[in-house]
């Protein structure tokens, strides 16, 4: 049995429809969404309503949270003043467009979903705003999965799909006795089984060097993961961006396989606001 994991739809209806159609053609009827249904793209209501209509279990992304909470993330999430200004414009536009019903739906989304030893989050188990980049420090990456008591952690947020296996994880502990409590030091060594981080990439705002939408399929039978790339009508979304009055530069960037705004570089930053 297989299930599909999608993430970061970013109000891109053409991309979302193409990915759902691809999943349907593969005969997969179980889908999990990792959030960021809205933000930057021109069809926030349409995308949210499509996910609701298909009853796809979703967790809340950073954009979904910000639309409800009102720019909850701090300015250090943005790599530049230019990106921040553009992001805020997109935020205000999206907040004005979204129906109250759809906002209520986004507000109701959980921060994580769990199925046995599989955990589904937007950014990391710590926060929707934390980036788990593929080259993140191995110990930190292992800690995120282990602390969440998962074997496989499915995440999005970075917009770059990848599968990272964390092998031969060992945690060594040494407890040194205080002077007031003399005795030999205690040492323990814990061997960790293989852990895995699977990033689903992005449906609506890919950043893998091309314009195709990406998502992943998890084949439960052999526990393998397949990264899928789905071409879609990029021009349709670009025209909708311009027609909606969003910055035309968003269309230019999407057309060239760049993010709507610049990508954030700080993988370790977790917004604490």
């Amino acid at each position: 049995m297989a299930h599909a994991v999608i993430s970061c739809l970013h109000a891109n209806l053409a991309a979302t429809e193409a990915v759902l159609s691809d999943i349907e053609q593969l005969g997969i009827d179980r889908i999990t969404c990792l959030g960021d249904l809205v933000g930057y793209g021109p069809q926030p209501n349409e995308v949210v309503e499509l996910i609701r209509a298909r009853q796809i279990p979703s967790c809340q992304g950073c954009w979904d949270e910000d639309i409800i909470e009102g720019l909850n993330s701090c300015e250090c999430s943005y790599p530049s003043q230019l990106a921040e200004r553009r992001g805020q414009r997109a935020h205000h536009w999206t907040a004005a467009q979204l129906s109250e019903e759809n906002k209520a739906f986004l507000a109701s989304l959980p921060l994580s979903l769990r199925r046995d030893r599989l955990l589904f989050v937007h950014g990391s188990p710590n926060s929707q705003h934390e980036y788990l980049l593929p080259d993140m420090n191995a110990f930190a990456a292992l800690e995120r999965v282990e602390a969440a008591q998962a074997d496989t952690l499915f995440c999005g947020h970075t917009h770059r799909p990848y599968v990272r296996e964390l092998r031969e994880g060992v945690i060594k502990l040494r407890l040194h006795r205080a002077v007031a409590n003399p005795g030999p030091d205690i040492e323990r060594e814990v061997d960790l089984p293989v852990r895995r981080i699977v990033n689903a990439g992005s449906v609506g705002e890919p950043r893998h060097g091309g314009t195709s939408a990406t998502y992943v399929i998890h084949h439960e039978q052999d526990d393998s993961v397949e990264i899928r790339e789905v071409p879609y009508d990029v021009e349709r979304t670009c025209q909708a961006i311009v027609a909606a009055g969003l910055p035309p530069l968003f269309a230019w960037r999407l057309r060239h396989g760049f993010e709507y705004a610049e990508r954030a570089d700080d993988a370790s930053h977790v917004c604490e606001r």
Partner: protein
Amino acid sequence: MTRVLLISGPPGCGKTSWILNQLQAHRGPCGYLRLEGFTAAELQQAPDGGIDRAFLVDQCPGLLDLAEPGENPASRPQDLLALIELPQWQAPPEAGLAGIDPRLLPPLEALQLLPQRHLSFGRDAELPAQDTLQFNALEAWSLDLTHSVWDPPSLNSFWFELVNGAYGEVYRAKALMNLPDGRSFFFNWIVSQEGTQFLPLERVAPPVGRPQRMSRLVVQGKHLDAAGIEATIADGLLSDAVLELQQAPQRPFGAPLPATR
């Protein structure tokens, strides 16, 4: 004896870089003059606004400004090397001095700067030719950015978008841009080359308020989206408050605050 050379060529062919090399190689006093050139049908001259001169003066301290109103030809040093830069779309019809556009002669005569040699990119083999492009139509657009200071990552993004076609078909772009730490960079890009030349100016302004030196952007291309460029620039420039926030830690304790404008 003063040696006067006229260097002409189309946008981005390397006139200023070649002139810089000559100035740096010359052991005696040097002077520089930039002529505006003539707009041909469908081919607008770029309003340079002094970018090239400011860059050369920074790289060659003591460079004589031959366009300076008070500059006295009689007091020029004997062994002066005077280089005149002329943007010119087409290679001159004839080689050497005979190829000089006659419209240039009266003003040059008034400055007592009649060239002894004329070298043209695309015509004279002793000049490099790899970026000497032929243009049929070209719009020009420029923006004075004096007193403006960029958020550095925003400048990086803006330049990437500019030279990759986000604001129209850009064939040539150059600029002098200020950063909050007092540095200024000369940006030099032409469509025929892969990357941009980013050259830091030698002179660094103190991190106290807005720099007084010139800053400007010049773009040449087709279907240029001037409004889009200006909107992005407005989003990438620092306000007084943010500039002060970035500069304050770089000043010695007790240093005077910037004057309020």
